[in-house]
């Protein structure tokens, strides 16, 4: 029923042997998978309220405020823009299984989470992600935190909904490499999924691409990050940030640096496309970005303004991953308007990009401030096991986790030895 590519299969096999032999993991025996029932959650994720009609609605402190034109932009106490919610707990939970399941790729080797790893800010630590072929794909993996609030997806803004976005990587030859027919065939052959889809979509008697993407959207729209230290400051507890961080905030929003003009609080994005002229990695051709999406030369080199929430977790930065850390990314803006445009390119650089002439110390302070936007308190749980029986996220990840667990165990044992040694003396 599940077709394995031989190397991945070998890897998976070695992983299973590895984990079982060391007995470090409480994972169930995968061969007995079909006997254990997967129960979808009946409760909403944290921060969501279960409504009478059985759907989950988001609640957050920014509901106490309003905003010009309802666009959710601008100051500290500003309401958020419209967002996606209203999915049932079962749809959200099914989405969670699907998101972490490598069965969604052509050869069961990678899942959505391979490039959007929860412990890496729902991104990866690569300049450009590696897809099913083992080669790097076109652009870096954007974070999925707070995607519920976005109305444009992909770096080049070519999708308007999460559902539309989902089919991109699923069926891209270099990413997950699947086809709709093959994906449906795979999932239909897993009785657990048939049952789970039945619970999540009681009005539909078969698994459809629409329901797959809806579940993925349901899950992703619960990735909410709005309780950082910055947020405590925004809600009025000014001691949440230290002096340096407040200085950084003020530089960030000053009209010298102008960061906050595009990365507008509270989401730290304005949901727009901007041409800022960031470089490509060496040897790569110029990426035209949103020029293609809008069929407009003036959008050449334009990309979506990314959110800065959990930005400290998602290095390297920009569409090409060309900047290794936050200091480098911040410095890019200080180096002057259009300084990285390749020869021969004529770009309509956004008017907010200029030459702010910030001091080194000020750049450091901005970086310090950006750390205060980290909040992963609502990180969803990884499923312990998957209906497909495959390792959660992918085999590589499982291998790393197993190694990590062993190391931890060894360290623990060592420390016990040392402690007991001390006692002997």
């Amino acid at each position, binding site marked *: 029923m599940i077709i394995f590519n031989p190397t991945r299969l070998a890897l998976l096999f070695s992983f299973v042997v590895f984990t079982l032999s060391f007995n470090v993991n409480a994972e169930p025996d995968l061969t007995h998978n079909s006997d254990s029932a997967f129960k979808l959650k009946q409760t909403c994720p944290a921060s969501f309220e279960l409504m009478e009609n059985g759907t989950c609605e988001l609640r957050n402190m920014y509901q106490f405020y309003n905003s*010009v034109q309802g666009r959710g932009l601008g100051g500290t106490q*500003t*309401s958020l823009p419209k967002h996606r919610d209203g999915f049932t707990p079962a749809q959200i939970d099914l989405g969670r299984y699907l998101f972490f399941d490598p069965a969604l790729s052509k050869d069961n080797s990678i899942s959505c989470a391979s490039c959007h790893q929860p412990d890496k800010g729902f991104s990866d630590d690569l300049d450009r992600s590696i897809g099913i072929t083992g080669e790097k794909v076109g652009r870096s993996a954007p974070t999925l935190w707070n995607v519920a609030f976005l109305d444009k997806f992909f770096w080049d803004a070519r999708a308007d909904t999460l559902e539309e976005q989902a089919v991109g990587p699923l069926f891209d030859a270099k990413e997950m490499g699947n086809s709709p027919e093959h994906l449906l065939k795979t999932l239909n052959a897993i009785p657990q999924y048939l049952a789970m889809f039945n619970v999540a979509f009681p009005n539909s008697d078969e698994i459809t691409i629409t329901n797959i993407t809806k579940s993925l959207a349901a899950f992703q729209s619960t990735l909410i990050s709005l309780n950082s230290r910055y947020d405590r400051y925004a809600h009025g507890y000014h001691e949440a940030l230290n002096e340096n961080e407040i200085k950084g905030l003020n530089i960030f929003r000053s009209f010298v640096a102008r960061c906050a003009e595009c990365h507008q609080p509270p989401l730290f994005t304005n949901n727009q496309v901007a041409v800022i002229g960031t470089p490509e990695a060496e040897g790569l051709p110029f990426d035209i970005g949103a020029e293609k999406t809008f069929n407009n030369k003036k959008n050449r080199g334009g990309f979506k303004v990314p959110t800065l929430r959990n930005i400290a977790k998602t290095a390297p930065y920009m569409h090409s991953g060309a900047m290794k850390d936050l200091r480098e990314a911040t410095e890019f803006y200080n180096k002057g308007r259009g300084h990285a445009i390749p020869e021969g390119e004529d770009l309509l650089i956004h008017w907010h990009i200029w030459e702010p002439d910030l001091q080194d110390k000020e750049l450091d302070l901005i970086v310090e401030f950006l750390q205060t936007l980290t909040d992963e308190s609502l990180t969803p749980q990884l499923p312990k096991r998957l209906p497909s029986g495959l390792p959660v996220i992918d085999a590589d990840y499982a291998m790393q986790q197993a190694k990590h667990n062993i190391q931890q165990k060894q360290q623990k044992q060592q420390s016990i030895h040392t402690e007991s040694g001390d006692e002997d003396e």
Partner: protein
Amino acid sequence: MSKGKILGAVLIAGAFAAGSYWGGLNSAAVITSSSGGASFSGGYDASKDAELGADTVVIEEMKGEVRVVNDGESIMAAVKAANPGDTIQVMPGTYHETVYVDKENISIVGVIKEGARATMDGKGVLNDAVLYSGNNFLIENMKITGYKGNGIMGQAGNNFIIRNNLIVDTGVYGIFPQLGKNGIVDHNIISGIEDAAIYVGMSDNIQVSYNDVFESVAGIEIENSRHAIVESNYVHNNTGGILAFVTPGLPIKTTYDVIIRNNFVVDNNHKNFAIPGSTVGMIPAGSGIVIWAGDDVIVEGNIITNNKTAGILIAGHNDFGKGSNDPESEPNSDRTMILDNFMMNNGHDTIDEVKALLLTELKTGNADIINAGSGVDSCIINRHRYVTAGINGWKECDFTNTKDIKTYLLDKPVPPRVIDKSESGKIAYLGVCTGCHTYTDRMIGPPVNIIQALYMDNPEGIAEYIAKPTKKREDYPEMPPQDYLDEETRLAVAKYMLSRKN
């Protein structure tokens, strides 16, 4: 505009120029008396503003403490110590600091003694002088100079008043309220600004009046904003005088319902010294009033003289400048309405583009009103008074004045969003607490059912604890204080927590 474009414009317009010449210009002038007649009835009805809601609660006038800041002390320290409702009086002296106000209902009042003002001096090093994000912010009587960024910048604060300030040689914008609703900018004197002396950005319900703005690139700019009145200002020797713009690429996409009336717009011939890449960098020196993709803009009763390019320039994104890369912003200036204005000696040293447009109508005079755009449904009265190009298709306005629109300001301040008090506990619980606590399981903090057992009938105890938590359990991290929630919300959240059953 490229030479090709100009040539194209000449050829296309030439095809109908003769017709309009004989059909329009030679007929007797239609003289409309503006002393009587109908008043403008369109525009904005505040009572129907959906964002305000029907049952809004008026903010209570808060009378707080007065905190005096003397020369040598810090304004920022006073703001930090202030509570909502407080007034900070700044005595004459020189203050070298950036002041940010992330609080509601704060007033900063400069005290002027025998003409000496409280002066904020950025010494060419500091970024912005004043940043405010709270609602109901007032700042008056200050002198601001030598900052690299803005004099006074607002970030989504509603109900602001910025008046009687003297702002000179200060960076990018003099006064820059952004993303705010219901605000007044009046009686300020501003000069020497690299972009706009007064820049109202992405805002609603604004009054800009009695300001003296000069020697800046743009005098007064209403950008991506609605329901704004610019009146009785003295706007002189800027590159461009008064602008009503839709700048593309911003998250809020429209400018409409703008009344520009009774201003002096004179001698705006200053060399353009804008920062490279800025939108105003394209404005030709000598532009009195510029309407760029703004809709429903009324120009009435202004004295517009000696602006060397043109008195009033109307264009769209595709006609003037680098154009737009924003598919969501409508590029044309629609429904421009020009009522009586006193215009003289404009366009005496104009640019080639304007000359070309005049030529299409076989005119060579000094340009008062130039429309280079293709917007629709515009109108004008007494067009015979002016030298014009591109307005032959405009109809006669069916009103002559805007007397009936006294202001676009709201009768009541914009209230903070009203949340049903019974909801505030729930929202705080779900929005914040559930990040660390579940009902039965250990997460970052202890389970809610354990907390319930400890505090049973004592929500006050929880409310008190969460404001100033202390470490209680060895195996749990210390809880961060929740004192950004007001007392009422802390109690509400405690009660809600105790009422949970799952």
